[in-house]
């Protein structure tokens, strides 16, 4: 099997498949992303002639889920060794930590149920096995650990890919890619392909865009690189390599965009891209990571809107968003309560109470002329104090 790195895991997995490892019918493959968990499952299935049934979070909870793994059609046909049909099926659930990570207790119990009822082997993969919520799954599964793949192995792998794809690459270039991948084979191969695929050659110079995927790239550095990027590719690679918090970064971009694009038409266009990026981010949530690509692309477009117009400018570092910190759930509930009282007596909606009445009431309060109104609305002392303290930021 052409799976490199994590040899021990491969052996353990194959042993498990061949039932040499005892009675657990489920296995949990865990480890960092991009090190070959999914590849191994598919390679093993190919080698042993197994059919892979894939299932994700929402599938797992559907009514049909259990039937797919426990119904008569899945019965293991053992005797017909001459059949060209696959000997059996296996169930594969990728990124189960995403399912469990979603305050989604329903997800974990659905999976447990599937494991319990399944007549076929159940394979799960996770990036972060330490999530407390995965404990029920870990109890019923064999555990196989995957590790970050080492640089020499990655280099060797890249060499192989170059051979296969007829890319002439300098050793130092491959070294650089491997070093920058931080053990993630998938990203190393992606980098190789995106850098070398079109020209079929790769020099060390070409890899200069790769910034080390390390925890130290600060917000400032990322912002600087982002705004001065000369191409879409440069911007999107920078984004995918940086470890800044994406929400913070979006805010920072939002703050700096007017400085970068003084022309209103350019600004509108750039902001439109940032807004799209924000939408993708919203859709990603915590599990749809395959949409990340679109997030990067949209955001990169905002940087590349009109590259000729770039003039270096002083970056604004995002201020701490006190505003969002201030409006806690408790405060919102309090405000809603006040608006409900006003709305009820004045026959307006809560939003209208907030927008059309509270500003006036506050001014009256400031001039000590609001006592009667407060009592007419039936506001409690806590609510009165709250209103009094709502200030400008």
């Amino acid at each position: 099997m052409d799976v490199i790195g994590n040899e021990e895991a491969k052996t353990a997995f194959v042993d498990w498949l061949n039932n040499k490892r005892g009675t657990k019918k489920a296995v949990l493959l865990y480890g960092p992303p991009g090190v070959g968990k999914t590849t191994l499952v598919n390679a093993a299935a190919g080698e042993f002639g197994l059919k892979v049934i894939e299932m994700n979070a929402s599938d797992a909870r559907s009514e049909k889920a259990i039937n797919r793994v426990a119904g008569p059609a899945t019965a293991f046909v053992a005797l017909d060794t001459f059949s060209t049909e696959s000997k059996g099926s296996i169930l594969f659930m990728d990124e189960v930590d995403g399912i469990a990570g979603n305050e989604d207790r329903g997800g974990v119990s659905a999976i447990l149920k599937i494991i319990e009822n399944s007549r076929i082997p159940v394979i799960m993969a996770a990036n972060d096995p330490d999530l407390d919520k995965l404990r029920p799954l870990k109890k019923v599964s064999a555990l196989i650990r995957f590790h970050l793949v080492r640089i020499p192995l990655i280099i060797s792998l890249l060499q192989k890919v170059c051979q296969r794809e007829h890319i002439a690459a300098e050793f130092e270039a491959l070294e650089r890619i491997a070093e920058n991948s931080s053990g993630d084979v998938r990203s190393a191969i992606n980098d190789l392909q995106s850098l070398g695929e079109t020209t079929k050659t790769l020099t060390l110079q070409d890899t200069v865009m790769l910034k080390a995927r390390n925890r130290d790239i600060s917000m400032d550095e990322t912002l600087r690189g982002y705004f001065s990027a000369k191409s879409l590719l440069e911007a999107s690679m920078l984004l995918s390599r940086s470890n800044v918090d994406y929400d913070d970064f979006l805010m920072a971009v939002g703050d700096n965009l007017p400085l970068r694009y003084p022309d209103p038409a350019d600004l509108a266009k750039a902001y439109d891209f940032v807004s799209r990026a924000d939408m993708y981010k919203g859709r990603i949530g915590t599990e749809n990571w395959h949409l990340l690509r679109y997030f990067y692309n949209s955001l990169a477009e905002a940087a590349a809107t009109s590259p000729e117009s770039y003039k270096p400018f002083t970056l604004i570092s995002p201020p701490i968003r006190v505003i969002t910190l201030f409006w806690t759930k408790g405060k919102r509930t309090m405000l809603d309560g006040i608006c409900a009282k006003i709305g009820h007596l004045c026959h307006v909606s809560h939003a209208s109470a907030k927008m059309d009445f509270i500003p006036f009431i506050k001014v009256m309060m400031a001039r000590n002329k609001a006592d009667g109104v407060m009592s007419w609305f039936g506001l409690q002392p806590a609510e009165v104090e709250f209103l009094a303290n709502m200030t400008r930021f």
Partner: protein
Amino acid sequence: MATNEESVMWVEKYRPKKLDEVVDLKDIVTSLKAFMRNPKTMPHLLLAGIPGTGKTTVALCIARELFGQNWKTFTLELNASDERGIDTVRERVKDFSRYSRAAFGNVPFALIILDESDQMTGPAQTALRRIMETSSRTSRFILICNQSGKIIEPIQSRCAIFRFSKLDRQAMIEQLCCIAKNEKVSLDNEAAERIVDYAEGDLRHAINALQTASAYREGVVDEKTVSQVIGEASPIQVQLMIRKALNGEFVEARKMMYDLIGSYGFSGSEIVRQMQRELFKMSTLSPEQKADLADVIGEYDYRLTQGANSDIQLSALLAQFAKVGKAKGETC
């Protein structure tokens, strides 16, 4: 110690209780009175128009005239933007129909007033239509909205539609003076004009502004105090924010947006909704301009539901406004 009677909000204290008292709506009132002479013939009603033009007042007057002193027993007031969805609306209507005594005198129905019905989505309105149908034996609906175009056709066709237009300037001034006199506040003409300018046809805003201004100096409201109120109280922030954006003052507009979020805890959708309302009222924009801008708002209203960061979406929205403003080449 001021008594309760005196301390009430003036918008409520001086809200007309009889249809005849309603400011400046003679035609509408005449038609309605015809219905109420013979309640059995009264259909569902749809009252449409910009905010502060008397729709809620008229609905409440109808309730009073039909049911007299205990009108509250026979009237259910709902606000679509406050209910969590069509299901809660259905529940409340059902409960109300069950427990209200459905007949009072020669009025064979109870009244359900649903405010801001244009905030309901298409599917919710379809469900509403069904609710209206199943309860039509025992209830009549008075739907209130800003834009009748947002009410689906099947509902419109089942209602008698009344359109409320921006109040006449003079009528508004008269109303303000009347209130001022009752409250023993001297209101000079310039101040009254200023308030009416500011209110852009919304009588509720005007009365609130008047009451707030009277808090500045005992018994006197002059132009100076009105300016102070406008400066300090400004629900007008949203309108100002729109104007700044259209004028190309993007950074200032964005700062105001943050202010709204920070000072008043508005959510992105609430700000967008207000922008729609204020856009409507702005007299310095042509209908075509308003339509274009309304489209832009609509697009970002949708994006707010998809995105993760309100201020990104709102900033992008303001940026689009700045672009439109520059293209039109006008200042407002």
